[in-house]
């Protein structure tokens, strides 16, 4: 038998020959030193490739990967967003409703504003009106107010509360901000 093509020896080592071809090659190999040497050389290459050690990892990828995936799906991030939203809503409500109350408490107005009219169609509005009335009744007789506050009107109070709320939100936003590597 003539020597098998070199490509056939590769296929023989890769177990890609059918049974007949494989037997033929095996028979030839058993009697042909040249083909045995060629096969051994290819086997050496296979062995070298398959035992090549892994290259050292230049740096740990865990933190950068987490920084990229966590903002999108972390329940903590979702909770932080929900908290921020609640803070925005609370600040707005405080600014709207507590301004007149504080003004009355400070003596700028002699009578507290009436509780908002209850919308019979809206249970939420009714509940809110009740809560507001309760808050106002609590603040109705707070004791003597300092003269310093007497000249501040309801709109001023509302603006002050809104500004304070805005600062509070800004501070929280900074605290909850993702680090630079997370923004990649």
């Amino acid at each position, binding site marked *: 038998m003539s020597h098998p093509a*070199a*490509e056939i020896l*590769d*296929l023989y080592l*890769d177990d*890609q020959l059918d049974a007949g071809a494989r037997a033929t090659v095996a028979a030839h190999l058993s009697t042909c030193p040249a083909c045995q040497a060629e096969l051994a*050389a*290819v086997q050496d*290459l*296979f062995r*070298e*490739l*398959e035992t*090549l*050690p*892994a*290259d050292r*990892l*230049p*740096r*740990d*990828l*865990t*933190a*950068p*990967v*987490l*920084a*990229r*995936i*966590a*903002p999108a*799906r*972390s*329940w*903590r*991030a979702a909770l*932080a967003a929900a908290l921020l939203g609640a803070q925005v809503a609370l600040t707005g409500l405080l600014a709207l409703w507590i301004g007149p109350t504080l003004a009355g408490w400070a003596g700028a107005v002699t009578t507290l504003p009436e509780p908002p009219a209850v919308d019979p169609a809206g249970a939420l509005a009714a509940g809110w009106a009740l809560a507001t009335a309760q808050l106002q009744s609590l603040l109705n007789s707070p004791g003597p107010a300092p003269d310093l506050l007497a000249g501040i009107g309801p709109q001023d109070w509302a603006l002050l509360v809104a500004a304070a709320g805005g600062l509070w939100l800004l501070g929280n936003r*900074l*605290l*909850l*901000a*993702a*680090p630079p*590597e*997370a923004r990649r």
Partner: protein
Amino acid sequence: MDGTLAQPWGAAHRPLSTPAEIETWTRLTDGQLAMLARGGRPDAYGELVRRHQLAVYNIAYRLVGEREEALDLAQDAFVRAYAALANFDPARPFGPWINRVVTNLALNVLGRRAGAPLSLERSPAAESHAGGGALTDSAAEPERVYLAGERQALLRQAILALPPHYRAVVELRHFQDRSYDEIAAALAIPPSAVKSHLFRARRLLRQWLEDHA
């Protein structure tokens, strides 16, 4: 390796997982970690990254040949795999799955370098190497490597000197133990092309090693 994970969303950088949690992660299987990550615990995914990052990086490095690019590809692979966790079957091993992700990303890079999708059909790079049957060693330092007696480093250089389409079949066959049919499917080429290019790639590797050893 640092045992704490950076908290990605907070400025305080407190550990996202406590040491006790990390200890727990190490006892879980890949499938369990994947399920936890899918359920909203990305820090569990951190353990999967720790376990597989070396293999993933090495696949990328062997294919693209540049460490920084390989690091970026490995990172991208983990991020993409995380986004696709819903498609991962936790009953199957995570390693081969993430290896396929990074392999595909790296093959895309090689394809872009060649100006076309990577294929074992004749590419400009293949033509330039097929004629003379010799590998480029423009980026290699064989003398230095030889003097240092680093046969393995020499083999790495030989792999990186292969044309990208040959490098791809060597990677898939010898490092990922893929069958000819799997290689053909991964590279969208006929199995006969896998045979011929594996043969040529091995010939080139042997020739290069003989020339430089």
